[in-house]
């Protein structure tokens, strides 16, 4: 507010309008932020969302059932079939990941052992 007064120029009408707009925006923003943080707003949006989900639920279920029926009749995989397959793929990926980790560990041990053997051989060689 103070800053706006300092910047006030009586010969610049657009500047004055801009200040007015900025101040209105600030007030509006503050009011809306306070509004969305009230208990009443939380309860009303929660109720509206729940009502919408409850009313649209039966239609959604009907659509899904029809789709499953159609896909079955066409002998095509349903959404559940694809989901089951994806789950199995993830399980295979996890097994591969475990194998990869064991391989990494083995390689590390082999490298450490061969490094140690080289060191032992080097220390056993007679100095020329």
């Amino acid at each position, binding site marked *: 507010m103070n800053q706006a007064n300092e910047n006030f120029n009586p010969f610049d009408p657009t500047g004055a309008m801009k200040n007015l707009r900025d101040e209105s*925006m600030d007030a*509006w*923003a503050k009011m*809306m*932020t306070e509004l*969305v*943080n009230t*208990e009443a707003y*939380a*309860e009303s*949006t*929660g*109720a509206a*969302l*729940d009502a919408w*989900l*409850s009313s*649209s*639920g039966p239609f*959604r279920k009907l659509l899904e059932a029809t789709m499953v029926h159609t896909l079955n009749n066409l002998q095509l995989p349903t*959404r559940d079939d*694809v*989901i089951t397959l*994806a*789950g199995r793929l*993830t399980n295979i*990926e*996890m097994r591969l*990941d475990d194998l*990869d*980790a064991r391989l*990494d*560990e083995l390689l*590390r041990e082999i490298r450490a052992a061969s490094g140690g053997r080289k060191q032992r051989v080097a220390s056993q060689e007679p100095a020329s």
Partner: protein
Amino acid sequence: MSTAQSPQGEQTHPKSVPGYAEVYAELKKIAENAQTFQRLVTTDARIAQTPKHVVWTLNKARLFRYVPMVPEEKRHKLPLLLVFAIMNRPHVLDLRPGHSFVEYMLKRGYDLYLMDWGIPGPEDSQLRFDDYVLDYLPRAIRKLKSTSGSPQFNILGWCLGALISTLYASLRPDDGLKNLILLTAPLDFSDKTSGGFVRWASARQFNADRIVDTFGNVPGEMIDYGAKALKPVENFVGSYLNLWERIDNPKVVEAWHAMNTWVRDIIPMAGGAYRQLINEFFRENRLIEGTLVLRGERVDLSRLTANVLNVIAESDHITPPCQSEGIVDRIGSRDKEVFRVRGGHIGIMAGSGAEKNTWPHIDSWLAARAD
């Protein structure tokens, strides 16, 4: 239109014509600005351009390693893993060349890894925090350790990524985690009136189970709308008004375009994790109450012994400071610090002041502990 001749014999336009020319120029400029505005709002900028390669994958998750910018002998010994939230893309950490946290840390000699959770599909709707904390993250870390050759490592977790990192650090304290940086971490939900999502989710009528049962995964549009509706005027009007006013400034335009590209890139959140977040964290505050159990293991914050830097955004409306600050008294770490930064949830890491405030502090804190 009449014309006159100058003393030199050249044809000149009457005095009124320059006025038209000025108006025309102004209208042309407005039209150009409108075109620029439309382009910025509807197109994507090139973000997340720092070179990286995939070192591990599982389902949709990927672990990236950034190409180091500093010779190996000058690099910090311990790698740093970046863990971002599960309902946004992690590109905000590497927004654009010249203003990228990833680039900043690479230049300071960190061996950087990024955990990208990916975009959950319908088959991932049952994924819970249990899976992220006890399957995905430990496996990615196992690969990180074998790739980097370092048994110890650091984690920087942001938003829900900080929550996942905290859970992991509490459940697996002997896994080699040395330093943990938490950014705007939503952990303590005892104050239900502090605003943000907690207030909405605590309403009796808000039914997370019904949302998940209906959609499977929670649509990104729903999460995006919720985040924007916390500050409706700023997000739905102010942001665009500010852009219009400064549309002649290429630096502002570039920054706005990059940020808007990240904001527009919305993804769904796995239904199981959403249900857990609302019911077990927001409503029942199980982590702080000490009653949170993941796959039969109780999460005990006092078992978290890694060094902790807890970065709090003072004007954060998504994770209010009260949700983060209490954690330091509950963890078992000896070396712990709270760093408060002026700014919002995203602004402290991606805003214009991040390079002067947040990033240098993270670097100096970590550099003293990363070797």
